[in-house]
């Protein structure tokens, strides 16, 4: 590019600057001339208007940094030049001094621009609404409803910088607002108890064999009744249908009429008609609440009529660290040998159960398909398990054996069924349920809204103008006040058509009232006038009367009614059998009407002074308490006024106290002070320096939404009120306390969901034809492993290198099978030493991570590479240029992914990014879509004769075995952009571990984005580096990183 052209561009830019002076910052000054010269000398050869390499024309890139697009581009330029990536090695390099000067100038420009934006916004973050995860846990804590589910009723949240916590992505539409109204209503209603009295806690216990689902399993030959360790007497099996004439439609059924100690289930799925599995179905909760469930289970091997000790094993008999296939001496692929099938005819053998250790089958308990837990059933050792669960009326818990085959005893008409069957089984002894467990009444959720007083006891405002009946007194209700049909006639009120006359009376105390109606009728037809005394819309008990009294002999009719809380009550009289006798001319015999001469209401005596409970709080003090917690800060009377006004208006309209309060609470839950995080300390003062420190209450919320995903508790709010929270010793102690609190599990879960993208675990389902061994237990175990690993890093403050590599891993039996590690029995995760030679350890080789970075059929090194870059190295990806075809793996095996990628990278436009993205992905090629180790690819389609294939055994409960075609060998080698080579994942891992600072830097960045809800700006980099430096002594322990993040200026300022 010519010099004159260059000047021209800048001249044009200057022109623009004049036109748009307010947004165009700092026209080029002296320092910029230096930049111009540098760019011209070192960059413009490629990045000019003619060449535009990498789609970048630096000579035309505007320097109005205030435009976020341009700012981002210049930051990219900075990074490339700083890292030495640019100018490329083969080109003339700038002197270190020139490079430094250029970077310094650019730094100054970028920092200045960001500083100006900072001043305008009052800080790098902005207030943001809660995301739906935070919303749910906040309501749980606020209302005392630990299992409240409202998340699904809110729209999915947007995401920025990889997290759903960033202000810019958390928009509010009217749809969102409407959903907030609905969700708040639903949540509040769940918090209010419907039961009047404290429910009784009961214990239910029954033998498993008595349950309907178990009896049905026995009837279909999916289970056998046991007496001790032998078949219980009383089992009759019979053939249904006629095998001779209708072979296809006959089957063997069973009836059991004896006594059984337990029942052994032989299959994972109890037939298509019983997807609910085994249930404790004779137990039906009638009251919602917590229940303690206990049950006893053990494993065995069923041998026709008796139980033998279970033999270990699932399906897979693996060679170490690889799937159950190997190359034989002839170099062919073979599955690990299975024993010869036993010769007995008609018997269906399930592949099972090798290995030396004690067998343990696994039972899953679930509620409406949601797993509650996985439980061990040791061989011949009945084990009692216990868990606590919230059950709604009628809900039933299901039990499934995860390690049994999907079909067992063959029960066709010509078969013996269970008594001819040999195979693995799980015995259930009994089930027990205790509940509802009530530790206080009214329950906590009710207390949060209405205190300890029953809702009914709250007084309601008296109705102005209505008569009041005081305790122990009788009030005469003015007849003229009665509204409804009919009218006054002299001193009497008469009712000449069917309908209800009503009036309102203020009842001064709660209790039992009496209404006395003195009335007579004008008689017509063959019955007396009938009336019903009403309270509200309801009849009073024993309130129906025949008014068998005529003028001059009026009678008094009395009925009682209950008033739950002092306040206005509407009472009335209903006339139900109006009648006109057209045959009678005499007007006194013609029309049946009711005349009232007097209506009185008598109030109960005042309760004795000592029986009067402490005066319940009024609506204002209840609201104040609630708002203070919901707004996470002190609330002034003036602020409360609009909410109190809503409640008052509702009550004036006659709404019940409870309903009126709920309207007020709902308003609080829809207010910006509740929904927006960052308003807790009022509007932060604008500071000339830009960075305004958070107020104490805002700091408390930032802390609690960071580590608990929810509102601060009383301790944090107290510290905020005392203005001591911001002291560094206090903060440190609080972080320790918060991480030790069970609420921190929300941080572990949500942070890993977002950071490691574990929330994508269900985006794709592994193709059952390719991965028959994938099952729900594996799915759940994967997530558990990753969360437990992060939890361990946090509690034990393990160094950042353990993200990549570690000596021990946390696995259970199912993961051990997948990872090819022996001698791990049971559903619980436990610490296991990584065997020598195994590639496991660290997040990169966890099944969950390997699954979320793949689709259901194939892996893409590009996608996995991008994941490693963004999640582990913290390098944002550049969007692919348009008009470039993407690289997608080919499940048919026609072209290897490596060939495709190499072709792709031959294109210079792709190469610069792919040189960074692809290598980590290539290293992870040794792992399939469910995280299993592989040295050959699995391919779709049936293997032709002579083609390599492998037999995979579906995880018992869900799939059977399948033969799968194998493709080419996996090559996990690669080369980093800077030329360093690696042979496999271990090699790549070693390269990653060379720069622990980079790993720590990434964790610090991710934590800061997560905790503050804003991206990392160019000018935040020094603060990040400081965190990295301060954690160096602990090898960048993860808990140290959390502490330093909290201690940092980025965290403590707006």
């Amino acid at each position, binding site marked *: 590019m010519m010099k004159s052209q260059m000047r021209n561009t800048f001249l044009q830019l200057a022109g623009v600057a004049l036109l748009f002076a307010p947004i165009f910052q700092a026209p080029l000054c002296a320092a910029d001339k230096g930049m111009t010269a540098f760019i011209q000398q070192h960059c413009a050869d490629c990045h000019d208007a003619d060449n535009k390499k990498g789609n970048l024309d630096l000579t035309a890139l505007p320097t109005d940094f205030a435009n976020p*697009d341009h700012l981002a581009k210049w930051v990219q330029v900075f990074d490339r030049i700083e890292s030495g990536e640019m100018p490329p090695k083969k080109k003339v390099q700038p002197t270190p001094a020139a490079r430094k000067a250029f970077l310094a100038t650019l730094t100054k420009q970028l920092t200045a621009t960001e500083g100006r934006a900072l001043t305008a916004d009052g800080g790098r973050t902005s207030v943001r609404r809660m995301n739906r995860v935070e919303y749910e846990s906040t309501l749980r804590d606020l209302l005392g409803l630990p299992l409240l589910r409202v998340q699904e009723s809110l729209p999915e949240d*947007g995401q920025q910088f990889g997290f759903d916590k960033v202000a810019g992505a958390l928009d509010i539409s*009217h749809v969102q*607002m409407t959903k907030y109204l609905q969700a708040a*209503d639903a949540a509040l209603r769940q918090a209010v108890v419907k039961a009047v009295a404290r429910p009784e806690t009961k214990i239910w216990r029954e033998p498993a064999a008595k349950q309907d689902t178990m009896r049905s399993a026995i009837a279909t030959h999916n289970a056998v009744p046991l007496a001790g360790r032998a078949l219980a007497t009383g089992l009759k099996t019979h053939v249904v249908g006629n095998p001779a004439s209708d072979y296809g439609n006959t089957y063997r059924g069973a009836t059991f009429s004896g006594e059984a100690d337990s029942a052994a289930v032989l299959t994972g799925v109890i037939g298509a008609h019983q997807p609910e599995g085994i249930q404790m179905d004779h137990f039906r909760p009638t009251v919602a609440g917590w229940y303690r469930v206990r049950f006893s289970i053990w494993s065995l091997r069923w041998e026709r009529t008796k139980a033998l000790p279970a033999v270990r094993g699932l399906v897979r008999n693996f060679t170490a660290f690889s799937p159950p296939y190997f190359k034989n001496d002839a170099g062919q692929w073979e599955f690990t040998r299975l024993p010869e099938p036993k010769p007995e005819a008609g018997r269906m053998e399930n592949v099972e159960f090798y290995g030396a250790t004690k067998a343990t089958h696994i039972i899953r308990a679930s509620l409406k398909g949601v797993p509650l837990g996985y439980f061990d059933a040791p061989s011949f050792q009945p084990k009692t398990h216990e868990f606590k669960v919230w059950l709604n009326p009628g809900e039933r818990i299901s039990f499934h054996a995860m390690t049994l085959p999907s079909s067992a005893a063959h029960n066709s008409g010509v078969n013996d069924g269970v008594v001819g069957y040999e195979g693995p089984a799980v015995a259930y002894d009994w089930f027990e349920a205790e509940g509802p467990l009530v530790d206080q009444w009214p329950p906590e959720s009710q207390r949060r809204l209405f205190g300890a007083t029953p809702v009914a006891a709250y007084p309601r405002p008296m109705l102005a103008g209505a008569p009041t009946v005081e305790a122990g007194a009788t009030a005469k209700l003015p007849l003229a006040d009665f509204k409804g049909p009919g009218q006054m006639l002299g001193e009497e009120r008469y009712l000449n058509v069917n309908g209800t006359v009503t009036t309102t009376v203020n009842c001064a105390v709660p209790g039992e009232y009496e209404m006395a109606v003195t009335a007579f009728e004008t008689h017509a037809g063959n019955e007396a006038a009938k009336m019903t005394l009403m309270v509200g819309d309801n009849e009073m008990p024993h309130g129906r009367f025949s008014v068998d009294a005529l003028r001059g002999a009026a009678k008094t009719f009395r009925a009682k009614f209950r008033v739950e809380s002092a306040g206005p009550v509407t009472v009335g009289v209903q006339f139900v059998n109006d009648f006109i006798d057209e045959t009678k001319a005499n007007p006194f015999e013609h029309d049946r009407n009711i005349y009232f001469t007097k209506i009185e209401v008598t109030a109960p005596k005042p309760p004795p002074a000592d029986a009067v409970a402490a005066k319940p709080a009024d609506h204002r003090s209840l609201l104040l308490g609630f708002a203070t917690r919901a707004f996470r800060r002190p609330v002034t009377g003036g602020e409360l006024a609009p909410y109190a006004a809503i409640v008052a*208006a*509702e009550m004036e309209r006659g709404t019940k106290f409870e309903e009126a309060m709920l309207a007020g609470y709902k*308003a609080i839950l829809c207010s*910006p002070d509740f929904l927006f995080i960052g308003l807790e300390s009022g509007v932060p003062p604008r500071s000339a320096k830009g960075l305004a420190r958070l107020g104490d209450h805002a700091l408390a919320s930032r802390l609690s939404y960071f580590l608990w995903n929810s509102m601060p508790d009383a301790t944090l709010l107290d510290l905020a009120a005392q203005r001591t929270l911001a002291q560094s010793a206090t903060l440190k102690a609080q972080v320790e306390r918060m991480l030790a609190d069970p609420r921190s599990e929300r941080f572990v879960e949500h942070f890993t969901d977002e950071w490691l993208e574990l929330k994508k675990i269900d985006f*794709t389902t592994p193709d059952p034809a390719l991965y028959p061994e994938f099952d729900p237990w594996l799915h759940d175990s994967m997530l558990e492993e990753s969360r437990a690993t992060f939890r361990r890093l946090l509690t034990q403050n393990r160094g950042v290198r353990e993200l990549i590599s570690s000596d021990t891993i946390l696995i259970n039996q199912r993961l051990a099978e997948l990872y090819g590690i022996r001698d791990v029995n049971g559903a619980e995760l436990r610490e296991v030493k990584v065997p020598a030679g195994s590639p496991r350890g660290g997040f990169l080789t966890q099944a969950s991570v390997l699954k979320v970075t793949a689709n259901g059929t194939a892996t893409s090194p590009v996608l996995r590479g991008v994941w490693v870059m963004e999640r582990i190295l913290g390098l944002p990806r550049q969007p692919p240029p348009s008009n470039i075809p993407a690289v997608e793996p080919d499940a048919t095996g026609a072209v290897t992914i490596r060939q495709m990628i190499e072709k792709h990278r031959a294109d210079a436009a792709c190469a610069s990014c792919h040189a960074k993205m692809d290598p980590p992905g290539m290293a992870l090629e040794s792992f399939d879509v469910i995280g299993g180790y592989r040295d050959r690819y699995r391919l779709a389609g049936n293997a032709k004769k002579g083609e390599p294939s492998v037999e995979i055994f579906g995880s018992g409960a869900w799939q059977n075995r399948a033969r799968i075609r194998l493709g080419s060998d996996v090559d996990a080698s690669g080369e980093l952009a800077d030329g360093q080579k690696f042979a496999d994942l271990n090699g790549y891992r070693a390269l990653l571990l060379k720069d622990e600072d980079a790993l720590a830097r990434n964790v610090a960045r991710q934590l800061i984005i997560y905790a503050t809800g804003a991206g990392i700006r160019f000018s935040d980099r020094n603060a990040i580096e400081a965190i990295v430096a301060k954690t160096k002594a602990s090898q960048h322990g993860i808990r140290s990183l959390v502490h330093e993040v909290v201690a940092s200026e980025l965290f403590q300022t707006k």
Partner: protein
Amino acid sequence: MTHIATAPLSRRTFLRAAGATLALPFLDAMRPAFGQTTAAAPRRMISICTNLGVLERHFYPATAGHDYALTPYLETLKDFREHFTVFSGTSLPGVGGGHSAEATFLTGAPHPGTASFRNSISLDQFAAEQIGHQTRVAALPLVVSKSGNQSLSFTGSGVMLPAERSPAEVFKALFIAGDAASVEKQVENLRTGRSILDAVAARAATLQKQVGAADRERLDQYFTSVREVERRLLIAEEWERKPKPKVDVAVPKDPEYLPEKLAAMYDLAYLAFTTDSTRLITLLVKLDGFSEHIPGVSTDAHNLSHHVEREDKLKELMNLELAQFQKLAAFLKRLQATAEGDANLLDRTQVLYGSNLGNGNNHDNKNLPVILAGGGFKHGQHLAFDKTNNYPLSNLYVTMLQRLGLETGKFSSSTGTMRGLEMA
């Protein structure tokens, strides 16, 4: 032929029920079945975007004008040949960013996916601001997806309006009526809701005055949403008292896979139109992750869209796209078979079908595949524009708005109305 309704209603009944503030929905039932109509029939619009492109080779006719030869995809629509126009060489000016352009298919906002991007109002919402009050639901954003509520609809401040993905839920909201008591209760709730919103809006207004720029933007969104909900609750209160339309259809089940999901959404759109529950629908077909239940398809749709010219993939992709066109054809057929006054529903319903990607294989946002069916235009042609210098698709949007009866000469990046497309 199906007639929308049979028993004529008196206009007065409606007037009384609706109250003076509301304009009248023009149901066929209000008109004598075979007489002259006293007022214009309602005009409707459904905008459908399939998010991974449409294979150009099976879509665009080779020649422009009326006598083009049908391509494999257009073959599925051959019964309606005279009732749709196919466009080529159009796109939304300034819109790039590959998949990010899903958000701008109906807004035309430039540069999605960049740091400075801000979305703008979508076609349906623009129309809803003027005609939305005439129906129970102003506009109905729908989505067919594996997960999430992504939507084609955006408010004036560029906030996405989450789309409904459960046909059953929408059906219940539109057609399942409560009893009188629950209606009154609902009205009461709506009133309470309004007083709640009043209180919180006042609070937000106070805050807005005090905060800095970035915070103000967040609170503005909140404030606007609150006011919008209030306005809607007011309208909803009127609608709540009106009987919900009765339909002779069971509550649909929420299906799991693409073909069934598409069919359910089209059924729902049909019901919503015939009952005049709404006149504006958007439907985002987010294909990612689908492969099940589609004849001749076994690979994930996103993977297929990057076909890298491989024959087996192209074949599967064609099957995937044909399956979608067949569902569209079935929908058009139902509209056409439904009489409304002296015309049929298709003549009064603009059906826009297209994609934000011109080429799914390489993320190109130029040369968008677009069809406009029905709505009362002189159709039957292929309007071909320059493939290098695309014609603004936003011009079509202006034409569509005008066809709805809106007096507007501009929408988003438009430069006029769609050249060559005339009203019938």
